[in-house]
Each structure stands twice: as structure tokens, then as C-alpha cells.
């Protein structure tokens, strides 16, 4: 698993005219790590990646690779390679020549190049396609050529710009697993840029969430989902119900929060400190439970279970789960998702039906509003 620090980004800033694309950003990536930069379009993630590749020079800050500052080094002199979103395969060169392109520039001996190309062909499962031109390949094959070409120089760090963006969903899923296997096998550090959170969650060891040129949270996928650092992250990653309110009183390990349109909610006290009394409570839809009768009395007695009553307003059947929209009597609307564990005799709820929603205090995340 990840060991020593490979890449150290220190206070890097990049402006385009008046627009601040990357705003004093610092980050460390370890050797052998699979790191994802996730964020909405225009958040600066691609600019950051292009600075790592050398296509943009930071206005200030340092980019240390193995302790050497490469911020001003030109792309062709960096031990870093990039897989382009458009793949950027040279249309006039066949698969082998595309893969050999960088090796030739590096002045490698001819037989060595042949060996390395064969190795990369095998790695990308491209056997039999060596003489094809890029336009004679399928999208998935082009993607694998682009990957093989970028890996041929055995870079310390591979940058991937939306590498699966052009593939259809089925192919994307299998390619994700291939990429992960490959990365573990080679031990190369990968930094991937994506706007697709499922992709980032599936593949990455750690994810850096970016917004407005800053990293708003760097965490493992699980931490990111279960312990979002801010309301913005909670809403950006996955579905979430957010209730705004004020802290009414503090019990040990617990907060009682008076929410505007749900009534009081008991939540586990957060580890981080809060800015003030005004807070919001975030609860993931699958953490809530739904039934006609509500929880057993004993359960309510045992702990402070939050219990809300309302009416089903709509439902969406998604196969593995069903997603219910609930209009609470107190005024809030929320989403609850229920896993469809059985195929028949399913107890599903109809629009208009009265239901009870309940959840544990530990499933609530209290954040600054």
C-alpha cells in the first residue's frame, strides 16, 4: 500500500486573466497511490493536472516530485506522463508506433523499444491490433492504446484526464476494474481527474474534492461519504437530506437540534467544532428506515431514535433500490431509499400512504450551514 510521499504540491496558484483557476492549493500524493481529483466542471481540477504534466506553469507555489521542484520544467523533461481525455492518439501512426513514440524520443535502443512495445501491447490486451491506425479501433481499444502509450515510458506518476469519459457505461465499469488492477500491479502512482463521483469512489485510494480552485476535502471514499467536511461536500457526493436548525441543547455525545420543518432531531455530536449555534443536519437516504408502524417501542426506549411522520408523495423504482419522496407533517420533504431485498411479496408504499421515518443519531452528520 502507499508508502513515502511522491508528489508534494505546495501553495500552487494559477490565474487566467482575472479568473483564479487554482487558488493556493497544497496536496501530498504517496508513491503507489491511486488519487482522484473530483469536482464540478470549472473547479480547476484539469488546470491542476495540466500543471502537473507541465502544460501550464503555476503563477506561484512549488510542485515537488521526489523532492525536486518541477514547476518550471517543460513537459518533455518530466518523468510524468499523461493520458488525454481525447486520447490524442496520433492518427497517422499505427498502434505500435503510437506506443513507441515516447520511447524513440527517449533514445532507447531499437530492440529495447520492440520489447517494451510488445510488453505494452500485452498489457493493453492489444494483440493483433499492432498495425491498425487509431481510426480503425473501437473506443475501448483507443482508450487502451492511449494508456499503453502513456505507461510505456514507465513514468513515476501517470496523470489521467477523464480517461473513461468517452466510453459507454458498461465498458466504463469493466475498464475501471482493469485500471485498478493495472495500477496495483505496476505500483505507479495514478492521479485521475473526473467529474464522475462513482468513478472516483470505485477506483481511488483517496479523493480530493475541489471547488473554486481549492481542495475542500481530501479523504478516503468512505470518509468522504460518511464524514463530509462541509455541507457542500455532503451535497456534492451522493444524495443527502439536509435540515437546517439551531442547537437547542447539548447532552453528552449528543446534540438536540431544533430544525425548522422537521421538529427536534437528536444527532451525534460532531468531532469538528462548529462555527455557531446555527447548523444543518445531513442524513443519507439509505440511512433512514421506513415503515407503516414505526420502530418498536423498545427501540425508542433504548436510545434516542428520531421518529418523523409523513406521507409518501412519490416513488422511483430503480431495481436494486426504491427511492421514496416523503412529505413530513412538519413541512420538510425528504428522500428515503429502501433496498429491494426480496423479489416477491414486497411491502412497497403507495403515494398518499401514511408512513413513519426513523433514524439513529449516529447516522446524522452535523455541519455548519
Amino acid at each position, binding site marked *: 500500500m502507499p508508502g513515502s510521499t511522491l508528489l508534494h504540491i505546495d501553495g500552487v496558484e494559477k490565474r487566467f486573466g482575472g479568473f483564479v483557476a487554482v487558488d493556493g492549493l497544497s496536496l501530498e500524493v504517496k508513491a503507489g497511490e491511486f488519487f482522484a481529483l473530483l469536482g464540478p466542471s470549472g473547479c480547476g481540477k484539469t488546470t491542476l493536472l*495540466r500543471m502537473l504534466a*507541465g*502544460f*501550464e*506553469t503555476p503563477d506561484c507555489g512549488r510542485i515537488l516530485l521526489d523532492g525536486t521542484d518541477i514547476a518550471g520544467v517543460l513537459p518533455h523533461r518530466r518523468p510524468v506522463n499523461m493520458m488525454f481525455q481525447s486520447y490524442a492518439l496520433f492518427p497517422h501512426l499505427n498502434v505500435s508506433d503510437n506506443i513507441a513514440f515516447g520511447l524513440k524520443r527517449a533514445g532507447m535502443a531499437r530492440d529495447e523499444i520492440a520489447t517494451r512495445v510488445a510488453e505494452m501491447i500485452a498489457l493493453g490486451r492489444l494483440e493483433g491490433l499492432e498495425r491498425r491506425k487509431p481510426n480503425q479501433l473501437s473506443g475501448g481499444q483507443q482508450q487502451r492504446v492511449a494508456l499503453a502509450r502513456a505507461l510505456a515510458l514507465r513514468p513515476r506518476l501517470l496523470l489521467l484526464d477523464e480517461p473513461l469519459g468517452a466510453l459507454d457505461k458498461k465498458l466504463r465499469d469493466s475498464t475501471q476494474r482493469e485500471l485498478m488492477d493495472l495500477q496495483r500491479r505496476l505500483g505507479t502512482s495514478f492521479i485521475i481527474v473526473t467529474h464522475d463521483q462513482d468513478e472516483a469512489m470505485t477506483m481511488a485510494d483517496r479523493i480530493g474534492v475541489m471547488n473554486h480552485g481549492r481542495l475542500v476535502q481530501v479523504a478516503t471514499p468512505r470518509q468522504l461519504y460518511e464524514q463530509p467536511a462541509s455541507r457542500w461536500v455532503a451535497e456534492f457526493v451522493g444524495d443527502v437530506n439536509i435540515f437546517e436548525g439551531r442547537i437547542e441543547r447539548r447532552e453528552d455525545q449528543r446534540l438536540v437540534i431544533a430544525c425548522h420543518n422537521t421538529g427536534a432531531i437528536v444527532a451525534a455530536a460532531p468531532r469538528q467544532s462548529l462555527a455557531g449555534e446555527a447548523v444543518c443536519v445531513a442524513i443519507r437516504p439509505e440511512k433512514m428506515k421506513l415503515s407503516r408502524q414505526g420502530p418498536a417501542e423498545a427501540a425508542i426506549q433504548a436510545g434516542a431514535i428520531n421518529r418523523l411522520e409523513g406521507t409518501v408523495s412519490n416513488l422511483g423504482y430503480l431495481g436494486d433500490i426504491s427511492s421514496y419522496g416523503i412529505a413530513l407533517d412538519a413541512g420538510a420533504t425528504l428522500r428515503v431509499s429502501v433496498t429491494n431485498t426480496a423479489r416477491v411479496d414486497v411491502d412497497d408504499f403507495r403515494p398518499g400512504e401514511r408512513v413513519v421515518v426513523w433514524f439513529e443519531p449516529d447516522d446524522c452528520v452535523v455541519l455548519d450551514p
Partner: protein
Amino acid sequence: MSTRQLFTRPARRAAIAPYLWMVLFFLLPFAFVAKIALSQSALAQPPYLPTFDLTAGWEALKAAAATLSLDNFRLIFSDELYANSYLRSLLVAATSTTLLLLLGYPVAYAIARLPERWQPIAMVLVIIPFWTSFLIRVYAWINILQHDGLLNQVLMALHVISAPLVWLSTDSAMYIGIIYSYLPFMILPLYASLAKLQPSLLEAAQDLGASPAKSFWLVTFPLSLPGVGAGVLLCFIPIVGEFVIPDLLAGSGDMMIGQTLWLEFFANKDWPLAAAIAVMLLGILLVPLLVYEHIQRRQLEGKQ
């Protein structure tokens, strides 16, 4: 800094040779045209005075410069022959451009509506005649329009006319020649703007209740205006200065300005007057030229 900027310095160096070339062989010659337009015609080699002799010293140069005058321009303004020539050129260019637009638009429109794989083939068919010599195209019409040419033969065989008509050396022949030669220049930009038009826009217009004719006027035509503008300028400006077509097809009466210039230069050997005519012509054409340049730049900037 971005790596894209790394390309700019070598790219700018690439400009040096073509830049010098164009300054030397396109810009600089206009200085000579301007100077000679202010000179006097003379029986000499070269046939104008004064000639600046840089070895003769400063005083001689000053004396030579003093003899420069606006006489040629006074002549152009005072002699009706030249004014008529300019007017006829503008009139012929305006008429031909209008006819070209009326004829070229339906063709370009039809090509833009062809199935996509046929469109490039149709465009190559339109362009091929543009690649064959100007002269050949005009000459081909002489074949057809002459007294016992094909047009008269066909018309007589169809009993439309009983005796051969005079076609050659008339304005009709000249207009046919101009339209024939410039039609591809009109169709090309028209097609370029019509082909960019998405069929869904027309479908949307019709879905919203516009008849096909209405949706043409409300959607297609306004969106094709850049092509109309480019086509009009691409035709109008060169036609104003046209020489070959009126010389070979039109009658020997009124002359277009290109012919007048040619005549003064080659027949009358009055180089200064020819140069003055060119300067005036350039002045007249500068307006649409600048408009054209402006449109070109705006399109380029739009693309970036």
C-alpha cells in the same frame, strides 16, 4: 505561462519570410504606383518622368520631387471617359453580383440539402470549373455565342428565331461570361454557411407553426447572411476590376475601368495615367475590402 505559448515564439519566427515577401512584393509596389501616378508620361525608358536617381545627390532628388503633380488625377476627374468607365464598372459589378446571388443561392441551397455523403461531391463538381482557366471559360462562350455558334443554331432549330442574333460583343455576352466565371465564388461561401445550418432548426420552426416558405425566410435566410456577405464581396470586388471578360465578350463601346487601365498602359503607353487609374480604383475598392477584412477577422475570432 501555458505550453501553448511555447509554440508562439517559433511560430512567430515562421512569419518572418512571408512577412518580408509580402511587404516587398505586395505593399512596397503600391508606393511605386503612388509615385508614378504623380509623374508625367514621357517618351523614355521607362516611359515616365521624373525618375529618382539616388546617386545624383540630395538636390537632384529634391528637384525631381518638385516635378511630381496631381495632373493625372485632374485628367481623370475632368475627362468624362474615366468617370463613365468607373461608373460602368460599378454598375456591371452590382448587376452581376445581384444576378449571381439570385442564381447561386438556389444551387447552394440544393447542395446543402443533398444527403451528406453527396454534398462534398457536388461541391467538387462546382469547384472544378473554377480551377480550369478563366480564359478557357470565356473562350468556351465565344464558341457558343459567335454568329454561327451553337446558341444561334439551337435557337434556329427550335424556331425561336429565324435569323442568327448577334450575341458576341454585347453586354449580354459579357454578363453571361461574368456569371459563368464567378458562380463558384458565390456558391462556395453560400454553401459553407447553409451547410452549417442544423435541419432541426427548420424542423423546430415548422413544429412551431411556420410554413416551409416562412421558415426559410425566418430561419434559413437570416442564418445564411454571413455567406451572402462573403459571396457578394468575393464577386463584387474582382468584377469591378475585371479585364478579360469585358475585353473578349463585350462590345467595343463603353469600357470597364480594367479595360481603360489596360488600354492606357499597353496601347497608349501612358504608365502614369494607368497608375493614377489604379490608385483611384484601389480607393474605391478599399471600402468593401475593409468590410471584407473585418468580416474575416470577426469570423476567425468567433471560431477561437
